[in-house]
């Protein structure tokens, strides 16, 4: 994973997506997107405009019906199911609107889960690193708590650490603050920005919160299945 500056972590050329069905639903009509290492992008758009659809494809969770998607330089149409799984494991991290932590596992176990899935066990350094991240996001006291005993904001912070566990090159966050009050939302956002600049991980965040959107490096808007840039109002600092 050599991240030469300016090199695209994810690149799409003419990405199209139409959901099949009795009446096929065309959602994305040709998206050209280039995400370079370490940058922070927010994506906005009307409900139903296809933001989640795009994010799922960028994260190799779904496949496009047209165009090219390259993740870490690899055209995902050339990959098998397991090849896509490897990308999701090693290159991409996901954060969703709901925290989606496993209720059977503690906060710490949830956060190391991606490492366990990848190679069966976590080394003591990895464990230490995850623990330090959890302390960083303010969960130092909650390591052995189960998700249902933690607050929404705490769970979402744990989910962010989980997304970082395998040191991905990019984190895709689909409305990560959507379920949180504005205070915890802002806290979660600030964390993501910090991680992005400190660890050098690119972030693509879908949000309805205009204030947060404008705190990104770039804002992109999906409209009518196409993507267009939006001027950033340089306002709140991270």
């Amino acid at each position, binding site marked *: 994973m050599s991240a030469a500056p300016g090199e695209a972590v994810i690149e799409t050329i003419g990405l199209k997506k139409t959901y099949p069905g009795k009446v096929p639903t065309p959602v994305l009509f040709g998206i050209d997107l280039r995400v370079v290492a370490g940058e922070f992008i927010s994506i906005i758009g009307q409900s139903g405009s296809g933001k989640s659809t795009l994010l799922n494809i960028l994260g190799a969770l779904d496949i496009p019906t047209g165009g090219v998607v390259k993740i870490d330089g690899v055209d995902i149409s050339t990959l098998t199911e397991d090849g896509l799984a490897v990308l999701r494991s090693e290159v991409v991290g996901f954060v969703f609107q709901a925290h989606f932590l496993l209720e059977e596992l503690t906060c710490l176990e949830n956060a190391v889960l*991606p490492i366990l899935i990848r190679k*069966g066990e976590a080394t003591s350094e990895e464990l230490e690193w995850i623990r330090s991240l959890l302390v960083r996001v303010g969960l130092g006291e909650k390591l052995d708590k189960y998700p249902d005993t933690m607050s929404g904001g705490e769970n979402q912070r744990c989910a962010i650490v989980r997304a970082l566990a395998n040191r991905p090159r990019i984190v895709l966050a689909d409305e990560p603050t959507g379920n949180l009050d504005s205070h915890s939302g802002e806290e979660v956002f600030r964390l993501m920005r910090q991680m992005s600049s400190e660890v050098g991980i690119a972030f693509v965040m879908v949000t309805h919160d205009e204030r947060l959107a404008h705190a990104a490096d770039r804002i992109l808007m999906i409209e009518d299945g196409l993507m267009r840039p939006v001027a950033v109002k340089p306002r709140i600092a991270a």
Partner: protein
Amino acid sequence: MTITALLPLRIRFECQLAWRHLRSGGGQTWLTIAAVASGVIIVIFIMGLIFGLQKKFTSLLTEAIPHVTVQVPEGKPIPYADIPGSKGGLSSSRSELQAPQRKNIDDWRTVLSVASEIPNVQTVSAAVSGQGFASKGANPVGVSLTGADPAEQERITPVTKNLIAGHYLGLASDEVVVDYELAQDLNVAVGDRIRITSISGVPEPLRITGIYSKGQGRGSAYVTLRTGQSMLGIGNSVNVVYVKVFDIFGADAVAERLSVLLDCEAKSWSSEFPNFVTSLQAQSASAYLISGFTLIASSFAIASVLIVSVQRKAKQIGILKSIGARSNQIMLVFLFEGLGIAVAGSVMGAIAGITVVYLLSLPKQAVGRGGGSPEAIFPLILDPLYILAAMGAASLATVLAALLPARSAAKMNPVDAMR
């Protein structure tokens, strides 16, 4: 997650997660374990009961008869039509079955030593046996005569414990023990003298020293080996060797072995009771059928619980895939869950089944039969072999039941699952 460090890395996460699923499954986990366990209990009970009954009936049937009878038959009459060079074409060519003619076993001591070397053989005894007539004055009555050493014969066809009067052990050469029916026909009692004429010999005067009854007599008489030999005029030979085995169901194998080792005809008890053997086979078949259906039923129950559980976990499956889990990792998680249920269920079922069978075998009948100690009301037996087989079959059925939900979990589309 500590002792799991012993698991191979390739399956460690899958095992750990399966374990967590089982633990957090609570009542539902116990329900599936109970389904497997009940299957195992039923199988162990059915097998224990059917095989126990079979053993009991068989030993009742065979305790008083030789298990294997070794003889050297005279050549059988051949139908005329089968004789090479015969003109054939006879519409009816029936061969009359003659009174059993036997060749003598001259080197019967060899037969005894060969037979006693065969595994499963408990005891062997040489005897002479033949037909004759017993008379006390007037009408002669048909009698089947056995000449053998009383102590040896006692272990083949017990006489002493069925004695009504007198004694059998310590029989002298001019003495005889007869069954109750023969004594009735001749109207004699212990101490009386009778005369027995064998088909090939001279009349022999004998004194009755014992009368026994087995419930259904056929007119039998026991004399010493020497007396029998001289009555049938066969010198120092015998014409039959009797074998008693430990495992009654191994008698066929012993008979086969004897036929091969010795140039003789060795017949197992089972060839004398073909209908009985057939009914045993039918019983065994139904025991296997019931067991099979029980396991199928319990695996359906398990499959349906697991299918529901996979559906409830759809979201989690989507998450796992989104953080890099491969399809067969997901499948393994649910298979290990099934395996855990299988192992826990079959072990608990075996323990409970053994306990049930053991407890049920405790109550004894109030009165023993024929002076023996009281017998169990339920003649159940526990055989480690079929307990292990029941556990194995139940585990296999459970894992197979888990296969379907596990595959559907693996195939789940992460995007749809998380919606």
